[in-house]
């Protein structure tokens, strides 16, 4: 299908992406990086302030709200990217190694947040190399990719795609 005109921006407003290389604007503050996703949607400044502060609190970035992103650590930048994807309540979040730069506690916290979003109807597709992360979401449907091809998971692994149990996946 070929998208034309405003179809592409409209689609992108429904799908949020968390990149492995963060894709945050280094010369802007944490608050500005997160609010930009709401500004493009024409959300009022009062609402932007409220929603951005909520997501900043959820991702434990309150103390760094007005720091420039090029002053943040890799993990903090990763959280900014995640916050930007979450603040818009998208229908789908595509996350490429979102826990790659986070410590174990923050990774666990992030997976909990994803679960929470999933409960409210957001579909989350997450790529990871970290098996520990998978163990924190045993109910999630898993797809194993080996050399670009979908493989059957090892016997007894949690939430195998073969079990067809949609947990983190499938919009309510």
């Amino acid at each position: 299908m070929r998208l034309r005109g405003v179809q592409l921006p409209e689609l992108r407003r429904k799908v949020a992406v968390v990149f492995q290389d963060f894709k945050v604007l280094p010369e802007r503050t944490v608050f500005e990086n997160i609010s930009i996703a709401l500004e493009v949607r024409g959300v009022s400044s009062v609402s932007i302030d409220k929603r951005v502060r909520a997501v900043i609190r959820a991702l434990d970035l309150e103390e760094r709200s007005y720091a420039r992103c090029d002053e943040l650590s890799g993990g903090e930048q990763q959280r900014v990217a995640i916050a930007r994807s979450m603040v818009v309540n998208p229908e789908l979040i595509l996350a490429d190694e979102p826990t790659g730069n986070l410590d174990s506690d923050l990774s666990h916290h992030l997976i909990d947040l994803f679960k929470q979003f999933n409960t409210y109807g957001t579909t989350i597709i997450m790529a990871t190399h970290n098996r520990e992360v998978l163990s924190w979401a045993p109910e999630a449907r898993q797809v194993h990719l080996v050399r670009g091809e979908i493989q059957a998971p090892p016997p007894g692994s949690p939430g195998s795609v073969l079990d067809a149990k949609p947990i983190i996946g499938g919009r309510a």
Partner: protein
Amino acid sequence: MSTTKLFLRGVADMRRFPLPQLCTLLTVCMVALLAGTGLLILHNVQTEVLRTQGQARFQIYWKVGSDMTAVETQWADLKRAPGIAEVSTFTPRAALSELMRGLAPKSSGGGFANATANASSGEDFAWLEGDNPLPATALVSFNIPPSEDAEPWMGRMYARLKGLDGVEQVTYNPTQLTLATGWIALIQKAAWPALGFFALVVGLVVGNTLKLMMLARKDEVEILSLVGARPWFIRAPLFANGVVQGLTGSVLSLFCLKFLQTWLRSVLDVPPLFLKVEFLPLWQSVALVLCTTCVAGLASLIAARK
């Protein structure tokens, strides 16, 4: 977000990239200055040619020590002569004063202001009063009668002026008329295409410079696209950025051009040149600013298209 807010954001965002912005501003200013210098030369040559078109100019030198009362009577006669366009006269004292004014910066060793003031007041050459080596001179321009052929007419006028009492030498340049006629023809045939080509070059340089500046904001454009910004949301701030760059750069170039014109005037408006370098007329100054601003805005829009 309204378009006005987007424009204001574009202007405010300029401070985030100070170095690329400064480099772009300098480039836009220099290119606009180059275009302005071209216009300045064209305007002044055109003005000078049109002013002297159909005119013949003679420089008359009287003998040193001529009786100034008699010379001044001749000057008065010349000013009443038929077909006269312009008469500039110099007494030996005035000529010496002009000469001293011209020499003042070199002879004073840097005390230009004092030397000029002294030369003007006549204090520096008071000792030459009784033995001034310079002659009385006059620069006379005639309108050549339309029914006459220029060169024979100039020859006859030369002979007439040379025959005045006390006149030692008369100089004129018969090729001036040919030059003027040729220049007018050149202007009519080539000036507008040349100006058009020049405008195109200015447009390309300014446009490509702004495109290069946009590379500094490539990531921003990409991220805005990824979060679902519509094209105008991305382009409007960049457009405002380009317009401000074009406007500021071209206005700065006009200041530089004024400085250049003032300097050229002080250098060229001295004997024997007496070239009065004028600044661009208002409409050309406005056109320079508008063209540069439009090109810069357009280039920003094109740069942000993909």
